[in-house]
């Protein structure tokens, strides 16, 4: 009887150890993946709107920068962490204008790794101002 009790206790310890070492990283991986995807899609939406606005304004203007910052805040991204690039700075009528956003996001999975992932979003619209 004592032997059986001892075996069960050992098995429970083994299962708990496996759960902590395997299931906890899995759970965090799911959470981090979902969070990163949410950030990526939210940033993508801002890039698309910004590209259209850049086309309307005729390129990289202070109004565009303000708009991007406002939109990033609305989707829960701190604007100071985002690198915004607009090419070309002055866009001609019917010429493409590209808006790129980049954020470095920290991903940490317990027992496995911690790293920084660059989240990039790019959108291309067309210049709408006929100068």
């Amino acid at each position, binding site marked *: 009887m004592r032997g059986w009790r001892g075996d069960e206790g050992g*098995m429970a310890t083994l*299962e708990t150890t*496996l*759960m902590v070492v*395997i*299931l906890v990283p*899995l759970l965090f*991986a*799911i959470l981090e*993946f*979902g969070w990163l*995807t949410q950030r*990526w*899609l939210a940033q*993508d*939406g801002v890039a*698309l709107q910004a*590209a*259209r606005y850049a*086309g309307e304004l005729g390129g990289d203007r202070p109004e565009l920068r303000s708009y991007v910052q406002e939109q990033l805040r609305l989707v829960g991204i701190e604007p100071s962490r985002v690198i915004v690039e607009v090419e070309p700075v002055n866009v001609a009528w*019917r010429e*493409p204008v590209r808006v790129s956003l980049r954020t470095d996001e920290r991903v940490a999975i317990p027992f496995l790794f911690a790293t920084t992932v660059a989240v*990039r*979003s*790019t*959108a*291309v*619209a*067309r210049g*709408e101002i006929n100068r």
Partner: protein
Amino acid sequence: MTTLLALPLLLVVLVGVLELGALRAVAYRAAAAADLATLVAVGDQDQIELARSGNLRLAADAADTARDYFARNLSATAPALAASATAIAASADIASFPTAPSFDPRTGVRYERPTVRLIALVPVKTPGFAALLMPAVTTLTIRSTSSPR
């Protein structure tokens, strides 16, 4: 013991969920690329017609513009695609209806404004599904229509 037995099942579910999530993300981006392409295409009006009558009429190259910008925007998702963005855009069914009202024979929809309509088949790599003995490529159907105001 239960943990050891349940682990393979858990991994299968995890891979399936992650792959499905990634597929949804790519679908969202492809749809956004299509929306932006059709919006750009309808943003350019026939200037002569606009000056003459004040009516909105799409530029003659609206469908080509939509195709071009669809490829440009889709290229941001290129690593996840099973074909090149240019090839996907080239095979997309893009139709321009420069004047309104008009009838779309493909979808059966009547448009009350000038419209650009895009339907594209986007093949996406799904290695996670392949690991679960499912198709290695999943084809998404993307639809978008835009009209000027």
